[in-house]
């Protein structure tokens, strides 16, 4: 069994970590408390604070790195103060400061790591660089209690099917081009759907009102999938719809016209069916019965429903978290970082450079030995 307490402070029986996340348009800062010993169903991590502020771009526009980084720079101190106040702590109480080291957008990552470096030096607390995807996985496991699941990681920047093996989270399948959240966000821009609270949520609400399924390309390639062609196809349909061009695909079986709601419905059904297919194949391959959905798109109820249907057929169980933990947040960075810290992993200042490319399977998960 792994000893997670080799680095505990004398006269303490718990750990405190602060996590800063800013790899995309969410700036999140959270503080987590781990009790001494292995984390189990009766010895669980405690969320002391989990504060988030989102950069929202104008309708029809994506979030640009420069403006997103500006948002993070100008809000980080306020969010940090909130996180500490909610937790009732001061900086010097912390065991470590964890930050997202990648993957993500360069400028926002850079804005947040500067804040992390600054407070680490102010309070004389070690830094721990965290892989964003591993943050999602570890937080999902802790919140749901899923022991060893196949993980479907779906967000604006990532789409991966992952399973744990020999101290690494191995990627079994992934997108070959754009991420699923990016596909949904870009279609939301085509439809000029507002970005508040987030485009995927607004698409989901519209999809609920959709009645007619429009057949779209279905592009699963082995264990991988491709979504850029689907986006181009549906964008062109939407273009014809708005321009009033004749297109037989825009006429439903009952003769009525296809609506934007129908397109949202069709896009969701098509994309989620592809995700369910590769997840099922991964489950069969690694012979696991649990599925954990993490990442911002994981909060989509229709995706959860379709996944549950598949998993039920295999007598398995599906786990998902609510938007506090699904959507990018600081607490997941604090949690994964603290696990690494407890195993002795810290980053010297020179080793805190962020990277836009930091794959899930690069991380040595030495806090697990199963």
């Amino acid at each position, binding site marked *: 069994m792994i000893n997670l307490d080799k680095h505990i402070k004398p006269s303490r029986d718990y750990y405190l970590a602060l996590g800063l996340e800013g790899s995309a348009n969410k700036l999140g800062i959270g503080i987590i408390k781990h009790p001494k010993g292995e984390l189990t169903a009766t010895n669980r991590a405690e969320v002391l604070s989990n504060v988030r502020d989102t950069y929202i771009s*104008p309708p029809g526009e994506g979030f640009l790195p420069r403006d997103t980084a500006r948002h993070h720079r100008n809000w980080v101190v306020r969010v940090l103060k909130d996180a500490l106040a909610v937790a009732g702590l001061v900086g010097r109480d912390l065991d470590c400061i964890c930050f997202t080291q990648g993957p993500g957008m360069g400028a926002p990552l850079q804005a947040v790591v500067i804040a992390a470096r600054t407070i680490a030096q102010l309070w004389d607390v070690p830094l721990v660089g965290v892989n964003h995807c591993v943050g999602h996985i570890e937080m999902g496991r802790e919140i749901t209690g899923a022991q060893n699941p196949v993980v479907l990681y779906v967000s604006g920047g990532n789409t991966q099917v992952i399973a744990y093996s020999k101290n690494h989270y191995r990627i079994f399948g992934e997108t070959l081009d754009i991420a699923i959240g990016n596909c949904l966000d870009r279609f939301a821009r085509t439809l000029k759907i507002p970005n508040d609270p987030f485009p995927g949520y607004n698409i989901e609400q519209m999809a609920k009102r959709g009645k007619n399924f429009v057949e779209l390309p279905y592009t699963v390639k082995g264990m991988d999938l491709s979504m850029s062609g689907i986006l181009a196809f549906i964008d062109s349909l939407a273009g014809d719809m708005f321009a009033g061009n004749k297109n037989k695909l825009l006429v439903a079986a009952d003769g009525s016209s296809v609506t934007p709601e129908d397109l949202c419905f069709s896009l969701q059904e098509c994309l989620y069916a592809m995700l369910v297919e590769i997840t099922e194949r991964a489950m069969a391959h690694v012979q696991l019965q649990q599925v954990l959905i993490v990442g911002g798109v994981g909060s989509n109820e229709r995706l959860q429903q379709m996944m549950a249907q598949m998993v039920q057929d295999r007598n398995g169980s599906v786990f998902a978290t609510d938007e506090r933990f699904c959507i990018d947040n600081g607490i997941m960075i604090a949690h994964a970082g603290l696990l690494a810290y407890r195993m002795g992993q810290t980053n010297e200042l020179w080793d805190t450079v962020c990277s836009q490319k930091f794959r899930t399977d690069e991380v040595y998960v030495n806090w697990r030995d199963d």
Partner: protein
Amino acid sequence: MPNLFSLLESENCQIQTQLSSAMPDLIPTATYISPDLKKDFHPGCGPHSTQGTTTGPSDVVADKGAIDKDRPTEASDSTLGELRARLTTLQDQVNVFLTDRMKLGAAKEEDDKDLERRILDDGVDEDDVE
């Protein structure tokens, strides 16, 4: 990157320095070093503000008429607040300098291309030949 940033205590910034509290004023400075140029940046004696001229929202966002909810807070009159304001001035200076350098580089590249074209084609553009 040939940028070096350092925080130095003030030595020469007027009487205000001497009138300030126990903590000395913090003056951020920056130095740009490249093979052909070395340039020092100093925020000067102000006035300084956290509302920089180059650190606002991008034109794409501004043109959409979006309300800027992400403005930095005003600087307080504490030592660290004044440092924030001076840093914004310094950042403006660096941004303007680097943007000009990039424009200069792009113009030089265009000139070089033009020279190459004139040497190789003797100034005759094939498209112009009837």
